[in-house]
């Protein structure tokens, strides 16, 4: 099994070592100002991913939990704390954060982002745009901000033919509260594709498949 342990060969010792503490929104401002990697081949990769997500998964081993489940739980915590600058560091340089506007995935043919709009399709640059936008202090849809509680469970490893990648599927429930609005609940499944970059385990692609993706939503400007 080609687990993606860091170069020392062991699972990540401490997640605190994972992040650059001096990394701020100013670093994001200057990072990834072009969009050079989303192309036909990348879209083809996402279609291939969707086929692989459809397979039965195997519950994670203890070692896999330490690597992959830990990182997903860490991601959830960072999002709930609105620590977007750290969240950004979890992702590779050629990443995508994708929330299809089609439900019933992977069965729905309307999923293909190459020919359909999505709720979110963020490459590295747009992910940066989103964080800078959230941090402007004048994004009225996030003033006051959304407070979220991500709950994840049902982690399974799904096999992939791509060398150097690990696929983990999970189920989620997300509660969101903002201003005077009632608490909203979102749920569905997520797929995380992990890859090693610069000696660290990172998320290369994340797809969020909402149960109600095709319905109207009230203010989805928070991160899922």
């Amino acid at each position, binding site marked *: 099994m080609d687990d993606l342990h860091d170069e020392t060969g062991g699972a990540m010792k401490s997640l605190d070592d994972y992040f650059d503490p001096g990394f701020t929104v100013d670093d994001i401002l200057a990072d990834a*100002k072009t969009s050079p990697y989303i192309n036909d081949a990348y879209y083809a990769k996402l279609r291939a991913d969707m086929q692989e997500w459809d397979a039965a998964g195997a519950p994670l081993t203890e070692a896999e939990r330490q690597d992959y489940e830990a990182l997903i739980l860490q991601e959830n915590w960072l999002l709930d704390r609105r620590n977007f600058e750290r969240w950004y560091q979890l992702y590779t340089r050629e990443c995508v954060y994708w929330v299809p506007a089609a439900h019933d995935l992977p069965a729905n043919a309307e999923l293909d982002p190459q020919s*359909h709009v999505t709720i979110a399709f963020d490459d590295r640059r747009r992910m940066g745009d989103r964080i800078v936008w959230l941090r402007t202090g004048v994004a009225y849809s996030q003033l006051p901000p959304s407070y979220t509680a991500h709950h994840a469970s049902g982690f399974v490893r799904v096999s992939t033919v791509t060398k150097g990648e690990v696929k983990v599927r999970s189920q989620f429930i997300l509660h969101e509260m903002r201003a005077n609005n009632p608490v909203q609940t979102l749920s569905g499944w997520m797929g995380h594709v992990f890859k090693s970059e610069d000696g660290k385990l990172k998320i290369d692609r994340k797809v969020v498949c909402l149960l109600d993706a095709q*319905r109207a939503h*009230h*203010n989805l400007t928070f991160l899922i």
Partner: protein
Amino acid sequence: MPDPTDYSDLIEADRVHRTLYTDEQIFRTEMNKIYGGTWTYLAHASELSKPYSFVRRTLGLRPVIVTKDRNGQFHGVLNRCTHRGATVCRDESGTARRFTCPYHNWSFDNTGALVGVPMEEGYGPDFDKSKLGLGKLRVAEYRGFIFGTLNSELPDLETHLGHAARRLDEWMDRWPGGRISVRHGQHKLICNGNWKLVNDNSADGYHPGFSHASLLRMRKDRYGGGVDMQWVLGNVDEGLQTVADLGNGHTFLDQRREIERYWDQSAPMPGEDSYVETLRTRMGEKAEAALDMVMGSGMNLNIFPNLLIIGNQIQVIVPRALARTDLIWYSTSIEADDIPPEINSLRMRLQEDFPSFGEPDDLANFEECQSGLSVPEMEWLVVSRHRTTGKEYVDEHGHTTGPVTDELPIRAFWAEWQKWMTSTTKLVAQ
């Protein structure tokens, strides 16, 4: 409080009354008299590409089905069984030769005719199926845009659209020979506010520099000046944008004169640099004109009461309740032999930009308007901007035009609104 049935007390030259946004009775009247009284946008022909296609829509709060028959003719029928009232169609879209009501299996063909009743003899010898078809709308199409009404006295659709049809032509004909396709997904945004807060905003050139400060600041901090929408900053009354009253409640905000080169001024989108390289390598100089088709049109064309053309998107206002509106942003592509697929992939990504970083801030502001308008002691909203500054003029087509922050489009909306709300025409489902 003014009498809510006498609308002239609520709509003055300079101000309108808050109850127009907060009164249940007014909302119910609007849903019956405006939606279905005038030509109301229902669907785009490209959503009904095959024979026997249908889509489920609403006309105000009425459930309707838009269908295409075997000859390619469009029909609009009320989704309401003539037996005991159940909806006969429960899918969002699809193809069907017949709609069979699940309750007692009365079945209707896709033009609405009743064609089957189980154990029909039980209704006796005088039972006449031909009188029990689904309620029918009057339907008309203008170049793919399908409208419906329950008003048999309305002039034909093209007459009603008037000069708005010419603007729609300009929007559709940006690429000679190109066809607009509306089969690429939607953004569906909920606003807990009255539907007219959306209309008020649809040709409001006053708000972007403020309500969209987040988008503008993000763009400027990251990419510098020159990109999308930077022309809305500063004193826009001195800029080149205009608003116009096109008649019959249709209004237009024109940003096009601020755009020198569409592609260069476009908002960023995923895949931009990779596809530009591919296209320039493959097409040479011809790539530039095609790339311009990625960026939004620079037009905001509002067709009363519910169709808002914005950028490359078709935005449809769907009122659900007094203070609940769904805004559906239909994405579009251009189909033409000489438009490469990469252009449409880029269009998909660009059409995610404004629903992500622009519209949500407006919707938050509309909801806060709804909240503020609940205050009974503060009765009025100001809609007088540029009414008396002498900046309005009549353009070469005879339309009143003004600087982009002119509240003229809002005043034009209310004039049309009043016309339908006080109309005595009887609406019928034939």
